[in-house]
C-alpha cells in the first residue's frame, strides 16, 4: 500500500508523521519527495548511496540547419525559446523537457540532450527496517517534479510505501501524491492550518484519492479544524498533542516513537484505520 503524507501549509509535521509511521511498521519503504530540502535522513541518519542522476531532455538547436521559422518558439508552452534576428535563444531552466520543439521543427534542426537537475539516493544498507529513498534537486534548479517522478519509479509494490510529500499544493505535491492509495493530511489547529487543509481537501477530491487528517500540535489554536472535519465527514486519524517532550526530541533529531514507545500503538492504530478505509493491506 502506498500512503502519501501531505499538507497544504508547510511546517505542520509531514516529516514527523512520515517517520514515526514508518518506524512503527515493519518492512517499510520511505520516499522523501520533498526534493528541495529532503530532511527525513536528519532523523534516520542512514548512510546513503547515489542511485542515479535525474535528467530532463532539452533541445539543442543546430544554427546551420535552423532557418528561424519560429515554429519551435510558438510550440513552446513554457516560453523557454525566444527568436531574435539571427538566432533562437534557449533557456534551460524554463524547459520542461516535453519535446514539442523537436517534433514541430520541419528542418530537423533540433535534437535533444539530457541535462542533469538532481540525483536519487537510497539507504546504503537495507539491514534496518526502513529503507529510505530521497531525491535531491540541484541548487538553483526550479523544477522538482521530474525528480519526484524518477523517485517514484523505485516504489516496491510488495511493501508498505510512505511518501513524505513536499509542502504546498502545486506541481511537486501533486507529483508526489498522484497514484497513491491514501493521503494523510497533516495540519495544525490554527486558522492558517485550516485554510490550507481545506485547499488540500479540494485537491484530493480532484485526484480521487481517499484521505484523512492528522492534527498536530493539538491544543494550540482553536476548535475549527475539528469542526471542519466533522462537518465534512473527514476522518481524524490521530491527534498529536502540543507537548514539550515531542518538540525536544524533534530538535534533537529523534523520531518520538523511539523514545515514547506508547506512541507506536497510536501509529499502528492509524495504519489499521487506513487499511480499513482503503480495503487494502
Amino acid at each position, binding site marked *: 500500500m502506498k500512503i502519501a503524507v501531505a499538507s497544504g501549509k508547510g511546517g505542520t509535521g509531514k516529516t514527523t508523521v512520515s517517520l514515526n509511521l514508518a518506524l512503527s511498521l515493519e518492512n517499510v519503504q520511505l520516499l522523501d519527495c520533498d526534493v528541495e530540502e529532503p530532511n527525513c535522513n536528519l532523523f534516520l541518519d542512514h548512510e546513503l548511496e547515489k542511485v542515479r542522476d535525474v535528467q530532463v531532455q532539452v533541445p539543442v538547436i543546430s544554427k546551420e540547419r535552423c532557418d528561424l521559422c519560429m515554429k519551435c*518558439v510558438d510550440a513552446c508552452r*513554457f*516560453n*523557454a*525559446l*525566444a*527568436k*531574435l*534576428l539571427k*538566432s533562437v*535563444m534557449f*533557456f534551460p*531552466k*524554463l524547459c520542461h523537457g516535453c519535446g514539442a520543439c523537436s517534433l514541430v521543427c520541419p528542418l530537423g534542426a533540433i535534437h535533444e540532450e539530457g541535462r542533469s537537475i538532481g540525483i536519487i539516493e537510497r539507504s546504503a544498507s537495507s539491514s534496518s527496517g526502513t529503507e529510505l529513498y530521497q531525491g535531491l534537486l540541484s541548487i538553483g534548479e526550479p523544477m522538482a517534479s521530474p525528480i519526484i517522478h524518477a523517485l517514484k519509479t523505485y516504489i516496491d509494490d510488495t511493501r508498505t510505501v510512505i511518501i513524505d510529500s513536499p509542502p504546498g499544493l502545486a506541481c511537486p505535491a501533486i507529483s508526489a501524491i498522484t497514484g497513491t492509495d491514501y493521503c494523510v493530511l497533516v495540519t495544525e489547529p490554527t486558522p492558517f492550518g485550516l485554510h490550507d487543509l481545506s485547499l488540500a481537501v479540494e485537491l484530493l477530491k480532484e485526484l480521487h484519492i481517499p484521505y484523512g487528517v492528522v492534527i498536530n500540535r493539538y491544543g494550540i489554536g482553536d476548535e475549527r479544524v475539528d469542526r471542519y472535519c466533522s462537518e465534512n465527514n473527514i476522518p481524524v486519524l490521530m491527534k498529536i498533542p502540543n507537548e514539550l517532550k515531542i518538540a525536544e526530541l524533534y530538535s534533537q533529531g529523534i523520531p518520538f516513537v523511539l523514545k515514547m514507545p506508547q506512541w507506536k500503538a497510536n501509529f499502528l492504530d492509524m495504519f489499521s484505520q487506513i487499511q480499513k478505509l482503503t480495503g487494502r493491506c
Partner: protein
Amino acid sequence: MIICVTTKDNGPEAKIDPHFGRCAYFMFVDTDSMQEHEFVKNPYAAESQGAGVKAAQYITDHGADVLISGNPGPHATSVMETAGIKIVKYPEMSAMEAVQKFLGTNDL
C-alpha cells in the same frame, strides 16, 4: 529611435510599471516624432512562466531600441542584451517624464 516604457496604465498620466514581463502596458515612443506614442496591453502578463522572455521577444519585434522599466529578470535581460536593446532602470515616475529624463541625460 523607439523607446519602450513598461506602464501601469494607458493614459497620459501613466506611471512606470516596475515589473517587466508582467507589466500592464507597453508604451512605445518614437523619438523622431515625439508626439506619437502608442500603448499596447501586455499580452503575456498572465503567462504561467517565462513572461519576461515573451515580453522581451515582443518589444524586440516592435523594434524597441531602449527599454525603461524597473528591474527585468535575468532571462529577459539576456534576450534584450542579445537583441541590442539598452535597458534603463528608473524608479516609479510618470512614463512621459521618464522618456524626457532619458533623452535629457543621454545626448543622442
